[in-house]
């Protein structure tokens, strides 16, 4: 049996929170440059991404195709702002490239593509992540690789049939090297989640996954859920994350239509000020 990549024990929670703040700053800068973006989702996911990239994942930004890297698949391509922020924070991207987010001709468009270093799949058409993650996890097992596969997907994507086909496949093929990170932020394109998807955790448990539910904006909880997910017990791992869209910026947290945010140029500065105030 293979030995999985193992992250260090004793996470430095303070340092991880600092990383999350840095990610949020980067995202606000990108969104204000473009004037719009999927900023609320990005802010909601910042803690998870900080925990992954600065504690849990094994990777080498100098060698994005390193065969034994842990894979992180962002299934929600529209969360690209979060992905670019963490790829810059982790050293895959040059920070000076971030202001090109969403601009014509940019390498960093509004949706993620797999020609960007550190990006594993083409995002944007939702419901594509989990199935490919299962395939990667299966192939890595065949090769005896220590690498693990982490796949983020959203509450909206729980409405796509492909997600559940993949969920069954993961249990069937005993993908214990697979971790599903489900971003339940309560919103989708038309507003609040419209379909009865709860109880999400019970559904994954019933599908044969080892499942925990956490507050996705609580760093300690995230880190311990990730530690639990290292178990090699034949079961895929699901972490159901309840996140708050816009987390860290009260005005965005209170915003009713948060799926896509477009505000005036002047307002971005006050949103940035709110983030700093929240984190003094």
């Amino acid at each position, binding site marked *: 049996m293979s030995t999985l990549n193992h992250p260090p024990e004793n996470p430095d929670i303070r340092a991880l929170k600092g990383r999350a703040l840095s990610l949020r700053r980067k995202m606000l800068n990108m969104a204000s440059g473009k004037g719009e973006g999927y900023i609320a989702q990005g802010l909601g996911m910042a803690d998870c991404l900080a925990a992954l990239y600065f504690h849990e994942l094994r990777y080498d930004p100098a060698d994005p195709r390193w065969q034994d890297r842990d894979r992180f698949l962002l299934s929600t391509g529209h969360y690209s702002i979060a992905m670019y922020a963490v790829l810059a924070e982790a050293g895959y991207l040059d920070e000076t490239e971030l202001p090109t987010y969403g*601009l014509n001709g940019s390498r960093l468009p509004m949706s993620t593509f797999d020609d960007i270093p550190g990006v594993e799949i*083409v995002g944007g058409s939702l419901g594509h992540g989990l199935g490919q993650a299962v395939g990667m996890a299966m192939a890595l097992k065949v090769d005896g690789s220590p690498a693990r596969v982490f796949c983020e997907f959203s509450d909206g994507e729980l409405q796509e049939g492909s997600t559940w086909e993949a969920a069954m496949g993961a249990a069937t093929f005993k993908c214990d090297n697979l971790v599903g990170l489900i971003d339940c932020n309560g919103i989708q394109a038309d507003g609040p989640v419209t*379909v009865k998807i709860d109880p999400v955790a019970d559904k994954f448990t019933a599908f044969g996954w080892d499942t925990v539910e956490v507050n996705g904006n609580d760093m300690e909880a995230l880190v311990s859920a990730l530690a639990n997910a290292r178990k090699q017990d034949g079961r895929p791992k699901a972490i159901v994350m309840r996140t708050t869209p816009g987390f860290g910026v009260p005005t965005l947290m209170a915003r009713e239509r948060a799926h896509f945010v477009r505000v005036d140029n002047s307002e971005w500065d006050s949103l940035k000020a709110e983030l700093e105030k929240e984190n003094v």
Partner: protein
Amino acid sequence: MSEALQAVGRTRGMGELIDVEGKVTEIAPFGRTLAELAHERPEIVGLTADMGRYSDILPFRDAHPNRFFNVGMAEQNLIMIAAGMSKAGKIAYCTTYSVFITRRAYDFVSIACAHSMANVKIFAGMPGLVNGYGATHQATEDINMMRGIADLTIIDPCDATELKQVVRAVADIPGTVYVRSLRGKVPVELGSDYQFEVGKAKVIREGRDVGVISTGYMSARARDAADAAAGQGVDAAVLHVSTIKPFDKETVLSFAQRFDRLIVAENHKTTGGLATLVVEALYEAGIMKPLIKIGLADSFFECGSQEYLEAKYQVDLPHFMRAIVEGR
């Protein structure tokens, strides 16, 4: 940051056409007409897959909340539910983006709907290169795909005037219909005398020198280009083929006979769409004429504003002008 990267206009509403500058527009002609029609036709229901706001069906929801269903982001289920409702007596109008209908729900459109002649009317948003999110959102091969489904009617309206007529007309077209819808502020391009007829191509501009055969909003651009080209001494006629399937071969052939050179234009790849239909028809009829295709290459396309993409992929007004005036 390079200059090219800085040169972005503010984005319009998602999926609104660029050809609105200086034109009369109507807001949400699809949803507003559907809301009206549904007062007369109690059997109409409206469905979306989490794309209500972005497909303009909200006026229908507001007017007929009990007949509106948002099935969530589940395009296969959207089409199956629509098929089921039609088989229980409803006319089911459904909406999401073209890409998600065609690529994800294809089997269900083909078998659950078209094969049963189910009364399902699909208004597919942001066809072609209208969407700036790259290949995942750009339905640049949807005509090609949907043409392959027997008994399916395919319509690519030009503007708000035609789209409104189509919303009404499809209620009485038997079976399943796929409409390339237009959203947001939709330009009014055709005259008030324009009358949509399913299966009929219509000349929207007369001319002597060049024959342009086009569909969708490209027909309006062809007309604009023809108007501008007239100032340079070239008089182009425009035949608007809004029903792609069934294809009005007869009108296309008699139109083509009249010109020494032809241009085919569409908001789609030049493979498998209108150009392919036209070339097939011409060849079969033994008509060989120089023909320029304006449309997209067989490729995946970048992200970006519509202005940027259309210039980059050579389907903007200057390229139309070049094709009409210079014949290249």
